[in-house]
């Protein structure tokens, strides 16, 4: 499998989160899911996208620990390595 870069993951995560409601330009690495109004079902769907696109399986307990967009990107990149 080709190497996945942090930039690719960030772009995909932002695109996916934006599909749940917030404007893409409002989403930064420091944004918390709470302030973006991203809820647990949104995170379940994000995990599905990540699994489908990168083969990285994120369980419910993994997602519960995530507070910011950067947390999610870092976790996905570390699991993909």
């Amino acid at each position, binding site marked *: 499998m080709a190497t996945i870069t942090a930039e690719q993951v960030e772009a995909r995560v932002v695109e996916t989160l934006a599909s749940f409601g917030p404007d893409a330009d409002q989403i930064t690495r420091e944004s918390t899911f709470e302030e973006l109004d991203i809820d647990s079902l949104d995170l379940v*769907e994000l995990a*599905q*996208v990540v699994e489908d696109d990168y083969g990285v399986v994120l369980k419910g307990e993994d997602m519960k620990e995530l507070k910011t967009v950067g947390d999610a990107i870092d976790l996905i990149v570390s699991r993909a390595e």
Partner: protein
Amino acid sequence: MPESSGVRDGSALVTGASRGIGAAIARGLARDGWRVGVNYRSDRSGAEAVVSEIEGEGGQAVLLEADVSDRGAADELFGALESHFDAPVLALVNNAGISRDDLTPSLGDEEWDDVLQTNLTAAFRLTRRALRPMIRARSGRIVNISSIAGLRANPGQANYSAAKAGLIALTKTSAVEVARRGVTINAVAPGLIDTEFIGGASKELLDAIPARRLGTPEEVAACVRFLTSEEASYVTGAVLTVDGGLAA
């Protein structure tokens, strides 16, 4: 030709569709334009007849053998159906069910486990698998075939009743979780339906039913057809009884 205006975008999986209520549901969904996965466990000839009938009416269907109580059955069934029609599964009808009746003091562990596995755990696993593509598609219909035994006491059926009541709780909870993604999840609770599953009916039994007759598989299928229709988009977490007034 199918009665509907055209082929639906996705396909529909009906478990336990080789006879009785499941067969009627499979035929009904095909008439509504769904491409149907006809699941069976052991009655291959019955399932083949259902597929032939659907195809004879101009619909599309595929045979899918699997025991839904097997842990890997959900992935197996969805994988086979998705690849056969090259389309997401956007309707799931959890119909497969068994009964192993006995009074609670003598009900064995195996009879308890078998009924819970097939009637409840399998429905959970299939629902979990179904929700992935449905959530992403912002569209989906799941109908769980419960029973009035899940709503009121039915002596000799503690295992069956517990599973069917559990199915109603699963329906309501999962429906609420995914409602804002355009996915609806409902239950249909049949009463006494004229199938091999219940055998004949005594006069005493018929007298207990306000409608004074057994229901037909097609009358149950009609409810499922409504709940899987686009028109039922605002109905979710509901339990629709089809029982001639028995549970009223």
